[in-house]
Each structure stands twice: as structure tokens, then as C-alpha cells.
């Protein structure tokens, strides 16, 4: 019978590494996807996802079950991602592999040349528009879009009220709409 997250956490706190492995297996993909959505770079996202689970392991004894484990691990991953983004904004690298590069590597085939150009232009504009958002606004967009999380869960992860989540989402969507109006 599959153990619940809280039971696995209790076993972790008792020193069972296998319980932590099970938790990682349940959430590693989701955490990676959220990090990728925020950082737009595979290597950074992998680094952040691994670091998030490492920090969760170190702090597992302080986890008191006030929130669910997945909310907690997301919070750690989002915080590390936001810190990483802020650091990158202060010290931008000359070259970073973007999602465009990822898709080229995956050999995406367009339906027709017109769609190909249109889609590529939309992706470029969309990527730029997303990157122009502040880390906090990007976080709400990513968590809502990728995970379909409720405002309450997003608020728990980001440490803000549901009202703040609502207003950040509204602001972020408005910004994206304004920049992508032609494509929508």
C-alpha cells in the first residue's frame, strides 16, 4: 500500500533514507518543471531542483506538517529559483541556452512554413515577455499555468495572501497580453 507524504516525512525524520527517495521520486519532475518554467534553462533548472531536495533533506526535521510536503518543496524550489534569477539579473552571462535551444535540440517539426515563422516569432516574443516579468510575477504565472495550483496553494508557496496572488496574476497576464496582443 502506498504511504502518504506525511507518513514518508515521518519516516525520513526517523532517519529512513528510502522514504526520502520515495518523496523525491514523486516530485522531482514537478519541481524540475517549475524551476524550468522560472529559469528557462535546463541546466539551471536541474541544479535548482537538486538543490531544493538537498535543502529539504537538511531541514526535514524542522518540517512540522503545517503545509503539505509538495507545497513545502515547491516553496524551497521557487525561492532558490527567484534568488538565482536575481543573481543572473545582476550578473548576466554572455550566453545562456534558452528554451529555443531546447526545442531545436528536440527537433520540433512545423506544420507549414507560415506556421513555423509565426510560431517562432510568438515563442520569441513570449519568452521575452515572460523574462521581462519580475521573479515574483513569473512565479505566479508558472505555478498557475504548469501546476494549475489554487491561489491558496500558490500563496502558501510564495508566502503571500490569496489577494496578492490574484493581483500578481492579473498584472502579469495584463503585461503578457499587452506584449502579445497581435498573436492572441
Amino acid at each position, binding site marked *: 500500500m502506498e504511504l502518504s507524504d506525511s507518513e514518508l516525512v515521518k519516516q525520513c525524520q526517523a532517519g529512513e533514507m528510502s522514504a526520502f527517495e520515495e518523496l523525491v521520486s514523486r516530485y522531482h519532475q514537478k519541481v524540475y518543471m517549475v524551476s524550468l518554467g522560472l529559469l528557462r534553462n535546463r541546466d539551471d533548472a536541474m541544479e535548482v531542483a537538486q538543490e531544493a531536495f538537498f535543502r529539504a533533506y537538511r531541514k526535514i526535521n524542522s518540517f512540522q506538517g503545517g503545509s503539505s510536503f509538495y507545497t513545502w518543496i515547491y516553496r524551497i524550489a521557487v525561492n532558490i529559483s527567484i534568488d538565482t534569477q536575481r543573481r543572473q539579473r545582476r550578473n548576466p552571462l554572455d550566453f545562456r541556452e534558452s528554451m529555443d535551444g531546447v526545442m531545436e535540440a528536440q527537433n520540433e517539426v512545423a506544420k507549414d512554413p507560415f506556421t513555423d515563422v509565426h510560431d517562432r516569432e510568438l515563442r520569441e516574443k513570449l519568452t521575452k515577455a515572460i523574462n521581462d516579468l519580475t521573479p515574483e510575477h513569473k512565479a505566479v504565472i508558472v505555478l498557475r499555468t504548469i501546476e494549475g495550483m489554487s491561489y491558496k496553494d500558490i*500563496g502558501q508557496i510564495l508566502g*503571500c*495572501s*490569496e489577494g496578492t496572488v490574484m493581483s500578481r496574476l492579473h498584472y502579469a497576464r495584463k503585461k503578457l497580453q499587452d506584449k502579445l496582443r497581435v498573436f492572441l
Partner: protein
Amino acid sequence: MMLQKMRRSLVLLFSLLLVSFAGWCGAAEKTPQSVQVTIRSILAANKSDEFDAKLKGMEQQLKSLKYRSYRSLKDESKTVPWQGTQSFEIPGGRTLTVSPQEFQDNRIALKVRLTEHDKPIVDTTVKIANKGNFILGGPPHEGGALVLSISASAP
């Protein structure tokens, strides 16, 4: 989340209250109304090695005088108004007259006269720290020397 916001606001308000209270407490120096003067009469001698337990706290001050024994003779405390005068009876037919003059920079200026059988022995004006003291000693008494600890406190 509402509770968190409320808690944060309470913490801020509490900090502001503390800061205001600190400011009020540290407000400009107020001149106290009167001075509490305390005179301790002590006999310093070389007849024994006694150190009176009542003089605990003054060991360092007294031992610098290099006598072997110290005995408390009399303690007296009086409230003296600024520019006023108060007399203290000192063993050996002596009188100590004290007059607080001014309070500045947390120091009290004291005018002090020691007389013996109505004859002045010493007049001095000393500025001591608030709640501090100074020692006036030397007049012979009972085979030793009289030592007076003169302290003043302005609340």
C-alpha cells in the same frame, strides 16, 4: 495569511512603542529636586585584622588606606535641598556640614566642612559622580584614624 499580516503589524507597533518609550526615558536631563547624602563614619586602625561586615562593598576603597582593621562607627543619611545645608554628627565631637551646590553632567558638586569642637578642620568643594562617593579621612580617633565616606545621590 491575515493572521501573519496582523502579527507583523503588531510587531511593528510594539517596536514603535518601545522606541518612543526609550526616547521618553532618555529625554533631556532633568535636575532632581534634592539630594540624598549619606555619611559613613569608619574607624581605621592597626590593632587587629578585623574587617566589619557592614563595610562589605567598600573593601577596595578602604584597603588602599593600608590599615589592618576597619570598623563601622555610624551611618547616617539625610535629604538635603539644593543650595541647602545639613549637618551630620560625627564621632569624636565632630560635625560634618554638607551643602549640594549644583547638578551637571550627572555629577553633584558638594560643599563640605568638617569641624571638631566647632573648629573647622577642612573645607572642600568636590564634584562627585551621582550615586558615587569620596573619602575624607585622617583625624585621629580611638587609637586609629577616622575615615568618612561621603556619598550623594540625586534621583
